[in-house]
């Protein structure tokens, strides 16, 4: 019979010792399977371009964007900052193209019952007072944990969002890996706000929204007003046609 750890320090030491005693299934060989698959996909053209080519293309875009940006730098500066999992970029001259879709949750996956979505995502965000969401979606990301999108149909409470079938869209992401990028044109487009004493950001102008999903980057054109804030490691993004005061009221009801 051994001695049970009595302090957290002893528990930590016991865990360290335990690691060398753990049994794992034998590690399978993977090198040849992975490299053969990559070569086959390259030969078949079944996958996106190899990273260097993708990077080169992106670099070329970046060079062009930089040239344009340099001209604009005399007027304004480009900058970026983040709230939890959402990065906000200020880039003069970047406007949402009319050809980009609005944020339609079903572009990111299939709806699942809300409780099931919470279970699948592995966390449970708070919801605004009032009716339950009409639909919920799990967004798998390559880097961060899964995110959630909840959507409400238009109603007297939630007027329609331009170009969508929805009245309110609430997104929730865990952690601080910036899997969501919003791009606005000017610092003046981003307004400070406060939700229950927590610093928040209010963006009442059309802008771009990019989400890094497991299947690649998706870009949307946002036409609604957006409020972003973070509570207990969960970043919330609320999109509505309502004004700032009403959006803040909804956010405050998210306990």
């Amino acid at each position, binding site marked *: 019979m*051994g001695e049970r750890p009595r302090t957290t320090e002893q528990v930590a030491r016991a865990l360290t010792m335990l690691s060398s005693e753990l049994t794992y299934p034998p590690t399978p060989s993977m090198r040849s399977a992975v490299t053969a698959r990559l070569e086959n996909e*390259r030969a078949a053209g079944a996958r996106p371009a190899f990273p260097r080519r993708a990077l080169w293309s992106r670099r070329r875009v970046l060079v062009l964007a930089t040239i344009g940006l340099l001209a604009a730098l005399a007027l304004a500066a480009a900058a970026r900052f983040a709230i939890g999992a959402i990065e906000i970029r200020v880039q003069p001259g970047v406007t949402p193209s009319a050809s980009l879709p609005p944020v339609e949750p079903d572009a990111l996956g299939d709806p699942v019952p809300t409780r099931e979505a919470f279970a699948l995502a592995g966390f449970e965000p708070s919801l605004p007072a009032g009716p339950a969401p009409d639909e919920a979606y799990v967004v798998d*990301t390559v880097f961060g944990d899964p995110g959630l999108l909840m959507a409400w149909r238009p109603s007297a409470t939630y007027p329609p969002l331009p170009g969508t079938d929805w009245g309110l869209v609430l997104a929730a992401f865990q952690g601080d890996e910036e899997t969501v990028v919003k791009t606005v044109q000017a610092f003046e487009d981003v307004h400070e706000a406060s939700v229950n004493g927590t610093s928040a950001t209010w963006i009442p102008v059309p802008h771009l929204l990019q989400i890094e999903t497991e299947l690649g980057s998706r870009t949307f054109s946002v036409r609604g007003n957006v409020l972003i804030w973070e509570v207990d490691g969960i970043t919330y993004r609320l999109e509505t046609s309502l004004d700032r005061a009403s959006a803040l009221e909804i956010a405050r009801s998210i306990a």
Partner: protein
Amino acid sequence: MTDRVEGRPLEDVELARLARDGDVQAYGELVERYREVAFRTAWLITRSSAEAEDAAQEAFVKAFYALDRFRAGEAFRPWVLRIVSNEAKNRRRSVGRRERLTVRLARDRGPGDAAPSPEAAALGREEREALLGAIERLSEPERLVVTYRYLLELSEAETARALAIRPGTVKSRLSRALGRLRDQLEVSGDG
């Protein structure tokens, strides 16, 4: 020849750069270096050998296509483990019966294995089983942080990167988890 320069193994960052240039064999070297920790990470999440193997392989493929997002100066191991973790979490949803955490018995040790430290020896079989049971009863966020930090022996910084959480969150979760483990061991010891 992608894995050595003048007899020295190439650094991860150099292999990643070669792989980004399309050198699949250089990437194979990275896979070889990290397949064990990737498989174990996936297994600790899925508790299924088959799912863990699939998750680790799929994660290595996804990581290859995401190499242009691997930043210079970043460590490859936690970067790829984050992708492994996500892949494993997605697959865990469909896993049926889960394999259990087990420890080797003294008679299972091979002749080349290190003898257990006095502290490990002091933690008898019953206590080790109690500790494993207590780990299983932790909430998932706490179990993962304990698993990464102590069972996979990642540093706090690597754990934070691999779990996509802040270093401060790693510290606070670990502190809470260790407290819970201590309390559970106390209760089970009293019984």
